[in-house]
């Protein structure tokens, strides 16, 4: 079964093209790495998936349907930098936000919900921190709380934007363990990643991206010297250069 299907997707920021005619499919039950150099459009792709950005042409479907119809089955974990960590809120309340993804924000929170949220926290090893203020946590702990929130939503597809950024080795390992468990439960995970050294260990599939889709498929087939050269080598330099050019031409500078 196909979980994500992307067809001829092009996305622009203002007038600068960021993704060009991207086209791929992701089958069910895999841990998929979304890999590419800085500015390759990895986060853009995820944001387009969940409707934060509107494509200029093409589109994507999940479980064969548009995002709005299956939103409850898709959990999104944003980059840590997009959040106000000084906001007055406790860890458990952050996790409980996962329920809004599941059934809308106007329902009252019940005792069972708190119990479920605590279970999710326990699964990522953060239960002792349940009543801590969110700003007291380290980067890795914040990331785990985010994962717990996604777990509470009980989605079938998890989209994660750089969950390993600024996270220590122990946390990375702990997160991976949970990811593997989720995969074994039949869930699909799409993870934006930029550490090339760990790609082969972490992922079953790789989407290699540099504005265009370079390749998509099982790690062994896609993560080759040749493809990496295309994404990161001197040929890729032209992609960056032309993007800069279009930005200056279209904005009239």
């Amino acid at each position, binding site marked *: 079964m196909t979980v994500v299907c992307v067809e001829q997707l092009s996305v622009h920021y203002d007038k600068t093209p960021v993704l060009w005619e991207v086209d791929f499919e992701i089958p069910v039950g895999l841990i998929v790495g979304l890999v590419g150099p800085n500015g390759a459009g990895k986060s853009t792709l995820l944001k387009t998936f969940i409707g*934060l950005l509107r494509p200029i042409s093409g589109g994507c479907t999940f479980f064969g349907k548009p995002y709005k119809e299956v939103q409850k089955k898709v959990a*999104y974990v944003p980059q840590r930098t997009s*959040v106000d960590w000084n*906001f007055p*809120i406790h860890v458990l*309340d952050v996790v409980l*936000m996962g329920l*809004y*993804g599941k059934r809308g924000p106007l329902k009252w929170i019940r005792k069972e919900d708190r119990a479920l949220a605590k279970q999710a926290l326990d699964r990522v090893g953060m239960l002792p921190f349940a009543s801590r203020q969110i700003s007291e946590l380290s980067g890795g702990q914040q990331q785990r709380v985010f994962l717990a929130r996604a777990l509470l939503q009980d989605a079938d597809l998890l989209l994660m934007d750089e969950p390993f950024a600024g996270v220590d080795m122990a946390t990375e390992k702990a997160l991976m363990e949970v990811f593997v468990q989720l995969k074994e439960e039949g869930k699909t995970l799409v993870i934006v990643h930029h550490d090339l050294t760990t790609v082969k260990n972490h992922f079953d599939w790789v989407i290699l991206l540099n504005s265009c889709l370079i390749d998509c498929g099982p790690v062994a087939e896609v993560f080759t010297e040749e493809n990496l050269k295309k994404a990161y080598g001197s040929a890729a330099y032209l992609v960056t250069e032309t993007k800069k050019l279009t930005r200056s031409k279209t904005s009239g500078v």
Partner: protein
Amino acid sequence: MLEFFVDPILRAPTIGSMLMGLASGLIGCLAFLQKRSLVGEALSHAAYPGVVLGLVIAAAFFPGGISAAILVGAFLSGLLGLFVIHQMEKRLKIASDAALCFVLSVFFGVGVCIASGLQISHALWLQKIQVFLLGEAATMMDGHIFLYGGLTLACVLSVISLFRFLEILHFDPEYAKAVNLPSKAVHTILYILLMVAIVVGMRSVGVVLMSSMLIAPPSAARQWTTKFSSFLILSGALGLLSGFLGNALSVWSLAPLPTGPMIALVATAICLFSLFFAPERGFLPKLIRVTHFQLRCKQENILKALYKKRTINPNPYLLWRMRTKGWIKGEKLTPEGYSQAEKLVRLHRLWEVYLVHMGQESDRVHHSAEEMEHILTPEIEIQLQALLDNPTQDPHQQPIPGVSR
């Protein structure tokens, strides 16, 4: 105390000021969390020309509805200010602070110009308008209370019903969009509520001082709270309290003190008190904790010097503190002080071993250890011992005391 709520002259100003404090304390929280507190300042000034025009139009066409016309005028002109700010930021790419200042000064200037144009022809109107500059709670009647009460109630109910939305929207805006919250609609409602709070406040603190009521209560409340709900409730309550106390002080005072500035001053005083004295985030408790730690370091250094039989700097205060802790008697170590000193030396040397283990040169580790001996916790000590396999000597071949094999 009770007379403020019963006396027919006092009750309207008192209740009106309290309603104002509640509404602005509550709504101010949301601007505070968006780090856009200055929007309140700009919009309250932007409301002023609306006050003037509202009065002029109402006085000319339907003299019965002057109060209502002023409120509607203020509301609309504030919204126009908001629209201009938004357009300047979005379309002209003008920095937010510049756009806010522009709207603040231009709108306020226009208001002042029209008002002074009325000076000679309609002196009575001008008087009515000037009430809204610095506020004059004393001129409020019972009728006003129902109007302001209704508007405040609308603010409170909106915040309660939107509570979860507001929480997600302010904490994690991207997630809010991902789960399909109507972010734009909620933002629009927020700005409308902000305008309502300003309109409620104009009469008691005036457009000039209004922003203090939007900023001071949230800043104070944030010092004491770690949850969104308690933050909102406390901020509203502090606004309410400022409204009451400001009013009471201006009544109790011997010289005639104006109510609006008194309320703003009370709110600011509460805010300053919180900034200095709140247990977790306050300036003074932080200072005390730092000083306390520094004193402990000094005492521990004396302890170490005694342990190593070196001469000490006999600071009488520090020695007195150490005596009360039972670490020394006279100037000799007690058994307890001895084991405390042993612990310090152990941590110092363990840390040196650790740094050498991590690849540092052994002659460069002393400095770091001088600091870490005061900081390392028993848990870290256990971890260090396990990691280094219970060392008995430091890198300088000195014994590590108190390690049992």
